[in-house]
């Protein structure tokens, strides 16, 4: 296990609101990590900063063995370094087939001309089959993504992430709106993915996090409040105070 992503001393203020306040998180490879926290704790802003959507006011975001900084790179450049992101709301290309969605995400040259003259390969097709199998969409490959159920769309998006073959997956609330059975399957997919890569799951749902059975980071007001096993953090009185003690937790 080595450090893959290191976020240190990062702060970000939006119109006077401190979304992230001196945040430091370190993610190893491979690792499965859950980030929990109440609304407004800065979970999504954290993802925005790592993926290049938001530039922090201060702090460092360092990636990989060669300790490259990710700050100042575009979203596409960061994605090509090996960071995949799943949005909270399932965002797949609804008008296109499941296969086309996966094919677009498949790790291949990303330039316009390479894509224009792209030829379908047997390896590519096999990889798509493999990923579809992994996320349980084998029978849905020819369907239009818009016709899929909510849970299937979430899996398709996770499949698109896997197709990118990233070293780090950032997954925002994958279980939102899922049935108990679908949640279980999602847990399995994420746990398997985390055997070879780093997977960071942002989640509200404690039951889901418990099932992931991984190290947990609790965010509060843009800062790490506690870190450790779920039992450890849930026993922490400050955590109970700000998060678990609340009625809506």
């Amino acid at each position, binding site marked *: 296990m080595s450090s893959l992503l290191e976020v240190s001393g990062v702060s970000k203020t939006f119109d006077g609101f401190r979304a992230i306040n001196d945040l430091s998180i370190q993610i190893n490879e491979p690792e499965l990590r859950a980030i929990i926290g109440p609304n407004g704790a800065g979970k999504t802003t954290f993802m925005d900063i790592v993926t290049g959507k938001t530039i922090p006011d201060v702090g460092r975001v360092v990636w990989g063995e060669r300790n490259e900084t990710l700050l100042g790179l575009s979203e596409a450049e960061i994605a*090509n370094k090996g960071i995949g992101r799943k949005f909270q709301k399932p965002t797949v290309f609804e008008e296109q087939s499941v296969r086309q969605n996966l094919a677009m995400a498949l790790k291949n040259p990303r330039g316009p001309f390479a894509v224009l003259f792209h030829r379908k390969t047997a390896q590519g097709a096999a990889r798509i089959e493999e990923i579809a199998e992994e996320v349980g969409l084998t029978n849905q490959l020819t369907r239009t993504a818009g016709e899929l159920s909510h849970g299937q769309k979430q899996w398709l998006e996770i499949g698109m992430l896997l197709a990118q073959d990233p070293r780090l997956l950032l997954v925002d609330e994958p279980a939102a709106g899922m049935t108990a059975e679908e949640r279980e399957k999602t847990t399995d997919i994420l746990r398997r993915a985390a055997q070879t890569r780093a997977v960071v799951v942002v989640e509200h749902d404690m039951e889901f996090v418990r099932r992931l059975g991984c190290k947990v980071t609790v965010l509060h007001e843009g800062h790490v409040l506690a870190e450790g096993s779920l039992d450890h953090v849930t026993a922490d009185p400050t955590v109970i105070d700000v998060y678990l003690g609340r009625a809506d937790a």
Partner: protein
Amino acid sequence: MTQGFLVTNRSIRWFLMALALFTAVVAFGSEASGAGLISTSLVKTLGKTLCLCLVAVAMDVVWGYCGILSLGHFAFFGIGGYAVGMWLMYARTEGIVMSSLSAQVIPSTPTEVSDAIGSQIFGVVGSSDFPMIWAFAHSLPLQLLMVVLVPGLLALVFGWLAFRSRVTGVYLSILTQAMTLALSLYLFQNDSGLRGNNGLSGLQNIPGFEQTSQATISLVFFLASALALGLGYILFAWIVAGKMGSVVKGIRDNEARVRFLGYRVEGYKLFVFTLTAVVSGIAGALYYPQAGIINPAEIAPIASIYLAVWVAIGGRGRLYGAVIGAALVSLLSSWFTGGGAPDVNLGFYLIQWTDWWLVLLGLSFVCVTLFFPKGIGGLFDYIVRKPS
């Protein structure tokens, strides 16, 4: 791959067959072929319509597929027309000047010839000097290069600036419209070097083919327009059919997702914007010799808005929809405004279509947008079942 792509896309084969059939009917019915069933002016109208269809297909790619509502593609069309028009006008004037000067005893110096051509062309705006931009006007190959280069470079620079700053949606439309308006206003000036509001005229006379009848010339341009439309259609259909099409449609539907997949969205938009601008320029270069005249009013923003209306009525996101929309609306437009449609007397009011056509067009645009967002092309979905 190209072969496979033609075989697997039925709509392309249907379109190409329909185009070939239409072209053959017009060609054999034209005055040039001796049948005389189709008048030369109708051949010109149909040839021009094919050019409009081509620019509409380009518009459909940039708007219907890539989601960029450009209100500048008719400007690129006009630039193509100006580029070819400059050569047509120069070469023809040169021919006339040479033949009149040849009657003189003392041979004219090249400067005298150049001045004579200049005063012929620019006398109308009170000048006789050739502006810089006419530097290549003597050469057909160079002006044909301009047909491609000028719209291409303009689109490249403009698109690079706009897409890099992540200007999207209605703001981008406004920017493209501003570009179009600026270009048109510039061309209206007498010292723009392109004869101000007079524009370029006499473009139907092709230098070197003075003895050829307009019937034959119009047929040649008609056939060239049909060929250009066919090739342009195949090119764009190929682009939007493959993985490129996936990415481009992805950008239209969710730009951020495409970015996070690792695609540099700006590069793709720039590619589509520039390529469609170049094709628009080529369409314009074929259109204006058939129209005979080009002036800055042709480039005015309203023309680009019409282009968007054609594509919307025909059906965005399907290339044959753009062709149907452009052909139908532009032909109807010339029928209604050309006095072809009979006036309707309501007793208390006389509806004259020359005045009311725009109202009708506007209403149909609103109706299509509200009730048939897929446009006329959407009707094909009911006829043809999608192969699963």
